[in-house]
């Protein structure tokens, strides 16, 4: 009965496999995300000629934060943060259940909005500047994210993740520009240099800690876990570009995900922080030229019946 309902709800054949995927995501994503974060820190350290922390360091950090005394700046902040985690997980569930890409994007926006409101609610100068910058970054990457969904729709004919994966050819064949554009804005989404404007990933003391300034203890731990979920499902987007029905493509897709993550770490360590103007100018220009340019070409290819 549940499955029937879900089948109706998602509009495609909703099998046991989907439920397995959802459970796997909910359970494994934080593990994978945490380990990825650990690898990131280790890699960064090695790139800087250091030994670096253990791979499991992100978990130690989160467990420690869980043990700390609970303090907060107002009655509402924790609620917003909890809602952030909840809706990030929900977003991932929509995605890994093979749901609608636009639904995924909108629910991700809702989740991010909770994080931003959580920071705003503190009414602290550092948190507020961080939150404003995060908003600016959202404005910067949103067009490219939406164009990605549109690109899949034009190639595949639906917005459903499941249908993208069921296609005969990898979508990247038609969407090279969109792919590059998406990888570009991933830097903003992962909050990496040169665009770690909102939370000072590396420059720990610039802006104190931006948006996260007023979060402490468990609240901060929840934010970290949410980011792990978020990163995993962002890599899922990358996977989507390459994976199709053939096994080879799935293996390549996983390798590309790993490579993209490595690439982001590399970019992170080779750039200094840039001004917000650069963030918005560059991502809008990328969205316009690579994203929209790609889609524009696709339109005409479709119009003349070439694809």
């Amino acid at each position, binding site marked *: 009965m549940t499955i029937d309902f879900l089948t109706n709800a998602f509009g495609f054949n909703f099998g046991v496999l989907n439920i397995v995927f959802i459970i796997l995501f909910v359970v494994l994503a934080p593990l994978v995300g945490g380990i990825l974060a650990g690898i990131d820190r280790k890699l960064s*350290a090695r790139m800087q000629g*250091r*030994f670096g922390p253990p791979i499991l360091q992100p*978990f130690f*950090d989160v467990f420690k934060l869980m043990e*700390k*005394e609970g303090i907060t700046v107002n009655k509402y902040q924790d609620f917003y943060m909890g809602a952030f985690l909840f809706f990030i997980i929900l977003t991932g569930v929509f995605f890994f259940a093979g749901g609608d890409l636009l639904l995924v994007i909108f629910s991700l926006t809702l989740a991010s909005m909770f994080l931003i409101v959580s920071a705003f609610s503190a009414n602290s100068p550092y948190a507020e500047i961080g939150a404003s910058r995060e908003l600016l970054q959202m404005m910067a990457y949103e067009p490219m994210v939406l164009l990605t969904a549109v690109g899949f729709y034009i190639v595949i004919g639906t917005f459903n993740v499941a249908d993208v994966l069921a296609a005969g050819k990898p979508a990247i064949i038609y969407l090279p520009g969109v792919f590059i554009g998406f990888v570009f804005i991933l830097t903003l989404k992962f909050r990496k240099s040169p665009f770690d404007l909102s939370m000072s990933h590396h420059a*720990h003391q610039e802006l104190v800690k931006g948006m996260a300034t007023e979060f402490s203890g468990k609240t901060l731990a929840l934010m970290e*876990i949410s980011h792990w979920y978020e990163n995993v499902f962002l890599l899922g987007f990358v996977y989507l570009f390459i994976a199709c029905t053939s096994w080879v493509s799935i293996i390549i897709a996983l390798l590309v995900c790993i490579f993209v993550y490595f690439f982001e770490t590399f970019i992170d360590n080779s750039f200094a922080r840039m001004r917000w103007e650069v963030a918005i100018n560059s991502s809008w220009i990328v969205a316009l030229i690579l994203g929209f340019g790609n889609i524009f070409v696709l339109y005409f290819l479709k119009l003349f019946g070439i694809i």
Partner: protein
Amino acid sequence: MSYVTKSPWVIHYDGSSCNGCDIEVLACLTPMYDAERFGIINTGNPKHADLFLVTGGVNEQNKNVVKQIYEQMPEPKVVVAIGICACSGGIFAECYNILGGVDQVIPVDVYVPGCAARPESIIDGIVQGLGVLAEKRAAMGSAPAAKTEE
């Protein structure tokens, strides 16, 4: 086992130091010493920090700031006084504006003497602080134990 010892995040505050100790604190984070090996991160935010590293003595101007930073750190927390000035006021002890060491204002758990304190002894002091941190964590008792992620 408590995880507080595995991820010591520090906040560093310069009281009225001559900047000698401050440079040594920052030197701990360089590839040469690589304090992040132990999970040590310089957060710059009392709300995230477990250890409070103070360099230099406390003066009239900044005693409230030191107090406030200490108060804003969530329990369990440890104060490490770095350099002889932070321990006792050092050569500035007799100055008209100096109150003395950090322990005049807030409780100090670990004293790291030296002028300036060397990175090795600073890291050693932090690691000593971890022992205190673990004790304090154990004393908090009924606080929720470490959970696996949901």
